[in-house]
């Protein structure tokens, strides 16, 4: 079985995110990191390999992004992926969710994986949707926000929380599955794995290499135009207390509650 894990480089959570006023896109400069949700997808792939219910021949990390996105791939292989594929092309810049999913699906077609895993959302764009877009292009069944993944009788047995409680779904391979952060505790990479990450095979491909139709990607090919922004209706800022003396803090909370007749 071949597993492809979709990964993404995102701004470090500690860095304040903002929109670049001249391009209308997320400012992705500054400190970057592997999307933390993706580490759960890599861990899920590793646990499948180690679990022994299926023979996992290869785990391939796949990303789309500028040159700098290679760092997310290095992190992914340090966490256990065997090699990585980097789709990078000027023509892809500014792609919306639908265009990005299409481009990733074309890159994945080249690998013909039995299973595509990804994190439930990216830390920056907060979309939960890329898995479903990729799945429809690849004509594979799909489920998102999965918190338990097992192999049973050669198929996936998946659990997730949906609108009315917990659902259990059986999905046959090949499939596209996005995992929630409750699925596992990702391991920390060993120093040896970090040092060795750059030596693992990395393939660079362009949009043309994987047969992407240029009219369907980039800002031009995207069907959603979002270059306008405005501030939301302002909400009065709340009061903040830094707890230094807890007795004093508690007294203030009680007074605040009492004033509003909540006690």
């Amino acid at each position, binding site marked *: 079985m071949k597993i492809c894990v979709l990964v993404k480089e995102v701004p470090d959570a500690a860095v304040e*995110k*903002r*929109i670049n006023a001249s391009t209308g896109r997320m400012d992705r400069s500054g400190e970057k990191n592997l999307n933390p949700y993706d580490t759960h997808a890599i861990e899920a792939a590793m646990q499948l390999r180690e679990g022994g219910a299926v023979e996992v021949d290869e785990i391939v990390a796949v990303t789309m992004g500028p040159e700098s996105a290679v760092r997310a791939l290095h992190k992914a292989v340090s966490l256990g992926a065997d090699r990585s594929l980097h789709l990078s092309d000027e023509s892809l810049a500014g792609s919306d*969710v*639908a265009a990005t999913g299409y481009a990733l*699906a074309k890159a994945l077609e080249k690998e013909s994986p039995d299973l595509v895993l990804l994190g439930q959302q990216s830390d920056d764009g*907060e979309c*939960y*949707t*890329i898995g*479903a*877009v*990729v*799945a*429809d292009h690849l*004509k594979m*069944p*799909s*489920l*998102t926000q999965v918190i338990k993944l097992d192999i049973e009788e050669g198929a996936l047995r998946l659990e997730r*929380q*949906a*609108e*009315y*409680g*917990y*659902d*259990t*779904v059986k*999905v*046959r391979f090949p*499939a596209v599955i996005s995992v929630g952060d*409750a699925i596992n505790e990702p391991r920390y990479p060993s120093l040896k794995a970090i040092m060795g990450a750059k030596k693992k095979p990395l393939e660079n491909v362009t949009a043309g290499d994987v047969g992407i139709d240029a009219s369907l990607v980039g800002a031009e090919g*995207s*069907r*959603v*135009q*979002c270059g*306008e*922004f*405005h*501030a*939301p209706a302002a909400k009065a800022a*709340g*009061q*903040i*207390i*830094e*707890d230094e003396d*807890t*007795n004093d*803090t*508690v*007294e203030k909370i*009680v007074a*605040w*509650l009492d004033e*509003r007749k*909540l*006690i």
Partner: protein
Amino acid sequence: MSDVLIYVLHYEGAFNKNSLGAISEGAARAAEIGGEAHAVVVGGADLTDELCKTLGAYGAKKVFRAKGPEGLAQPVVDVMDKVISENGQSYAIFGGGLLGFEIGAGLAARKQAGVTMEVTEIKADGGKLVAHRPILGDSQISVSRYQGDLGIIIGRINAFELRQSGGEAEVVDVEIEYSAFTNQAEMISRGEQRGADVDIEGADILVAGGRGLGKAEGFELCEQLAGAFNNAAVAATRAVVDAGWYPYAAQIGQTGKTVSPKLYLAAGISGAIQHKVGMQSSENIVAINKDKNAPIFEFADLGIVGDLNKILPKLTEAIKAKKGA
């Protein structure tokens, strides 16, 4: 023609409130661009003519009904693809929730359409619909405009108000042959309730706990505090429910309950959007978190930066003392 098609989720013979809100919103906006609102439902025998016609009360003129598996996205993508191909609706609208995200995204791929999620407002502008989406921790609103034949709008839960305008919808049956890959997924069990059946909706005060409690036992602090108030209950975030620390019935947020108590006291909760959508209409929000950058401080009325293990027990005692005074 500028009709809109709204997906309506149902469970055990009842329609989802967010879907009904999406019909109300879709009907109002469709009227502004010279179109009608149509609903689409996929399921079994519980989708009777009588039940489907009731969607007319929220503004749907037609209800497209297909037989198919419930609780999965891809069957609905197949149905909506067919309905839109045959009837030419210009927009597809979802009331939000996990299935709405999946169906909307799958449909965007199928129809090469643009999609916007977490939409809190839809506006008509020059005969077209535009979607307003809060981004960057709700600090800015991004405006989406659509190109092509179809625009897909996935609402944030509780964004669209439910309005009854009266009327009865025409029910149209859709014959559908599902895609081969759609049939590769099968629902084994749906809607399982995990943990005790606790009632939080009737409480005036909710003390909610999140991952910051550190361990399941941390909920004892929340329960003691709730016990000190009158008519208070304990609620939880998705993360701790998934971890098995607290029952699903007490969960607030996107795949849990929506509440608006007089006081919502959040302990060790960061305030992610998925949680915020379930409690932001609470009358008073108090947050205790040791991370001063936690998003919850952006919308709390009173925020305390500190260690909940130190603060909660003392607060419990102080409230008891105050009531006794």
